[in-house]
């Protein structure tokens, strides 16, 4: 046994030595030159593998080739296994391959822990690199890419040309730009049946930097899809952000979910975002849009420029203006088949500030609808407020419910307000309208103009006069059937001029204008008073005893009839004793007489002349919380009518230098019948006395005080009325005769 073993080893050694040595002995006829050539060729070839096994036609597997190590032209690997012509067309596995391509202008080197090339009838060519690094240098461009796994398929059955990288990152540097593209998972699909150039990335980031710009895109999940004719330039991102920085600009678009479609069969430029934010900053200003849910849809001819936002805010700040628009829910449509510029907001607020002023709109529910031909400029607001403040004017409109229609098929300029308030103030005037219910409807088919006020309050203040109207219910009609008709319940009216305050209170007032009878007015429980502000006695001189004044009564008020229509003095007296100082405004304590100082200071009852308590909107849209009063004595209102104590301010008869104030010369002392010129109700009592005198009290106003030229038309004239009467008479007789004949 032992002898056999030794024989076998010995024979094998001898055979092997013979095989190894015999070729060397057989080269006796070869020249040195030929030997050198052979050596040269051998130097160019790769080193021989330590193990090179070729197996052909292995059942199932096919041809198998194993090389350890493997060395081919431009490619080396620690080990290479190739299986072909079997179950797969070709399968190559390279372990630690290093591939170099060195061409004229391009140098490429690729390293990997393992590379698998697979070619099957189903997958076509697929290359898988594991822990791979690839460097490419081409002229001025260098590119480096690394990946834990990189799969490249030329033509997969469904997705076509596909490239998937895991933990992949690419750096590219050119003379002009540097870019980075990386992600935990990066998949690029060149072509699928419906889409082109699809990209999906997980924890994906793309950065591109040039000398004058910086662009960064990133997201936990990013998907870009290009499906021509179906979804053009579609992007969906989760925790998505997109930053573009330029020399003078900055743009940021980001959100938990961001979806944009450039074009789809029905949609144009559609964007949906969840917890998204968009910032755009340029030299001229900044724009910030953010919201929990933001949807911008453009569906041409269906919904143009439609925006829906939840917890939405939109801020624009420019050099000379800023605005913000925000709300729990904001929906706006630029144009739809029926609608134009429609906006609905819940807990909505809009603020715009410019150099000229500030505008604030806010409401629990705000709806602005424009449906041409159906509802023009319609606004409905719940807990609605609208503030406009300019340099010299301000206005406030608000209410629990506010509804206004500019024009509708039946209605013109309709306004309905519940607990609403409208305040307007400028340098020369002030107006206040408020009420539990305030309704104004114009041009109703038969009714005409209709106004209804419940517990309403209307006040107008101009430089030299003011009016006030309030009541439990005030109803006005002016139409075809009933013209200038008014029904007022528990109404109070006040008219104040330089001369005094006329007050009318009535339980029920009914006024109707009938075609033939004219104006018919009935007052129940009516009371009219006039309280003069200042009475100048012809004998009252500064320092004289006021008790000598014949027209001065104890409370400082004078009824118009007290002096038989005389203006407190005769014309000749007036010339001899022009208007005298009647009150020192600075020292006015609100009492009705300044006894002992020689001055008559008739002051109307302050209870009846309460200064208007007006909630004046401030710039921030809130009320003036400090004093909550309309400040008529501020520097902005030198001609204010109210004193701090609530009494009516006295007109200054004398200028500061002691000279007579010409504007006051006639105003202070004459009968207050000027009121008759401003108030028709007052006219019933005092008209027709000496109105022309009172006209001298102020400068001629001419057309400035007129809003319209007088209405002087009428349907009926004597001839027409007589004709109608005759027709009625003849018709009556004819009817009677016809009836009698029929009975016979």
């Amino acid at each position, binding site marked *: 046994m032992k002898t056999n073993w030794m024989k076998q080893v010995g024979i094998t050694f001898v055979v092997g030595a013979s095989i190894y040595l015999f070729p060397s002995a057989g080269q006796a006829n070869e020249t040195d030159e030929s030997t050198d050539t052979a050596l040269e060729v051998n130097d160019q070839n790769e080193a021989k593998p330590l193990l090179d096994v070729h197996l052909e036609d292995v059942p199932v597997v096919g041809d198998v080739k194993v090389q350890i190590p493997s060395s081919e032209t431009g490619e080396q690997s620690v080990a290479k296994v190739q299986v072909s012509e079997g179950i797969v067309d070709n399968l190559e596995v390279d372990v630690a391959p290093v591939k170099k391509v060195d061409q004229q202008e391009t140098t490429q080197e690729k390293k990997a822990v393992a590379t698998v090339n697979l070619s099957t009838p189903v997958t076509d060519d697929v290359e898988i690199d594991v822990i791979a690094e690839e460097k490419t240098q081409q002229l001025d461009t260098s590119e480096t890419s690394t990946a834990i796994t990189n799969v490249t398929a030329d033509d997969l059955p469904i997705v076509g040309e596909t490239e998937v990288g895991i933990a992949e990152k690419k750096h590219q540097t050119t003379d002009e730009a540097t870019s980075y593209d990386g992600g935990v998972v990066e998949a690029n699909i060149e072509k699928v049946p419906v889409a082109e150039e699809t990209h999906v990335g997980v924890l994906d980031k793309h950065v591109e930097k040039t000398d004058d710009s910086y662009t960064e895109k990133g997201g936990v999940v990013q998907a870009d899809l290009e499906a021509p004719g179906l979804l053009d330039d579609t992007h969906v991102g989760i925790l998505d952000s997109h930053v573009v920085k330029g020399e003078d600009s900055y743009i940021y678009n980001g959100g938990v979910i961001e979806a944009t479609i450039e074009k789809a069969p029905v949609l144009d430029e559609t964007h949906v975002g969840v917890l998204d934010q968009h910032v755009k900053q340029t030299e001229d200003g900044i724009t910030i849009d953010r919201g929990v849910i933001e949807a911008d849809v453009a569906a041409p001819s269906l919904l143009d420029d439609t925006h829906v936002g939840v917890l939405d805010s939109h801020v624009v700040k420019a050099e000379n203006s800023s605005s913000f628009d925000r709300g729990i829910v904001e929906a706006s449509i630029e144009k739809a088949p029926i609608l134009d510029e429609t906006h609905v907001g819940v807990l909505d607020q809009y603020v715009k500030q410019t150099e000229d002023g500030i505008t604030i709109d806010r409401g629990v529910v705000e709806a602005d609808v424009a449906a041409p031909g159906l509802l023009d400029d319609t606004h409905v607001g719940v807990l609605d407020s609208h503030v406009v403040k300019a340099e010299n004017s301000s206005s406030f409109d608000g209410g629990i419910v506010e509804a206004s229609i500019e024009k509708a098929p039946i209605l013109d300029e309709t306004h309905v307000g519940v607990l609403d308030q409208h305040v307007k103030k400028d340098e020369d005037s002030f107006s206040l309208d408020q009420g539990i219910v305030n309704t104004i409807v114009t041009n109703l088919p038969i009714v005409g103009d209709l106004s209804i006020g419940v517990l309403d309050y209307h006040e107008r203040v101009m430089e030299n006069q003011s009016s006030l109207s309030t009541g439990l219910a005030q109803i006005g009609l002016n139409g075809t059937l009933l013209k200038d008709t008014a029904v007022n319940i528990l109404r109070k009216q006040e008219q104040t001029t330089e001369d005094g305050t006329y007050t009318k209170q009535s339980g029920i007032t009914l006024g109707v204008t009938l075609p033939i009878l004219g104006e018919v007015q009935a007052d129940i429980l009516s009371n009219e008073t006039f309280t003069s502000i200042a009475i100048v006695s012809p004998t009252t001189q500064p320092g004289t005893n006021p008790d000598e004044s014949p027209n001065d009564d104890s409370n400082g008020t004078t009824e118009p009839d007290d002096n038989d229509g005389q203006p407190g003095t005769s014309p000749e007296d007036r010339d001899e004793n022009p208007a005298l100082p009647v009150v020192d405004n600075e020292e006015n304590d609100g009492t009705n007489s300044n006894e002992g100082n020689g001055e008559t200071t008739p002051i109307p009852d302050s209870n009846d002349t309460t200064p208007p308590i007006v909630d004046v909107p401030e710039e921030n849209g809130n009320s003036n919380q400090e004093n909550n009063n309309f400040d008529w004595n501020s520097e902005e209102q030198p001609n204010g009518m109210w004193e701090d104590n609530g009494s009516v301010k006295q007109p200054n008869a004398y200028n500061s230098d002691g000279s007579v104030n010409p504007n006051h010369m006639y105003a202070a002392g004459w009968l207050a019948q000027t009121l008759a010129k401003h108030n028709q109700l007052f006219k019933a009592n005092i008209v027709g006395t000496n109105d022309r*005198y009172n006209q001298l009290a102020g400068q001629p106003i001419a057309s400035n005080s007129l809003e319209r030229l007088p209405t002087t038309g009428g349907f*009926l004239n004597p001839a027409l009325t007589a004709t109608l009467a005759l027709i009625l008479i003849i018709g009556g007789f004819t009817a009677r005769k016809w009836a009698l004949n029929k009975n016979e």
Partner: protein
Amino acid sequence: MLLLVSGMHSNKKQQSERLNAFAAMKVEAANSSEIHPALPNGTLDPKSGGIEGILDIPQIDLEAPVLLGADEQTLSEGLGTIENMDQPGVIDGSYAIAGHQSHVFGKYFNRLHEMEAGQEFTYETLDGIQRYKVFDIQIVKPEQVEILDSQNGIALLSLITCYPERSNEYRLIVQAKRIQ
């Protein structure tokens, strides 16, 4: 019919009474001005009853008292002046008289549209008789109140009524300047 006749009669009577009252007041004012020369020129006596003057336009057969005010009630009784304007006949001043174009019980300005430029008429106040010459006739919208603005160098008197017939849509403005 009776109502119409009664109304017409009443209106005519009222106009006549006012004309007479104004004549009486004018005499009284003349006496008063002798006693009280400081009475402002052209202004009414407190007892004038609100009559501003008498407008006499023979071309349209109109002689009517002019009341103070152009409100509906005043205009239902006759012609009326727009308040807060200048005195009549004052250079650089503007004065306006309005009247119904058609009214159940009166004629008033029912023939104002027959006026033509160049025609003359008079307006009598307590101060005297002022003669005017029509220089312009316009049809304007009711809101065009600037038509009443004074014009430099003339004493403007505007006569206002509605236009066209039985309509309030426009206003017919006959403007005249004082010539005497």
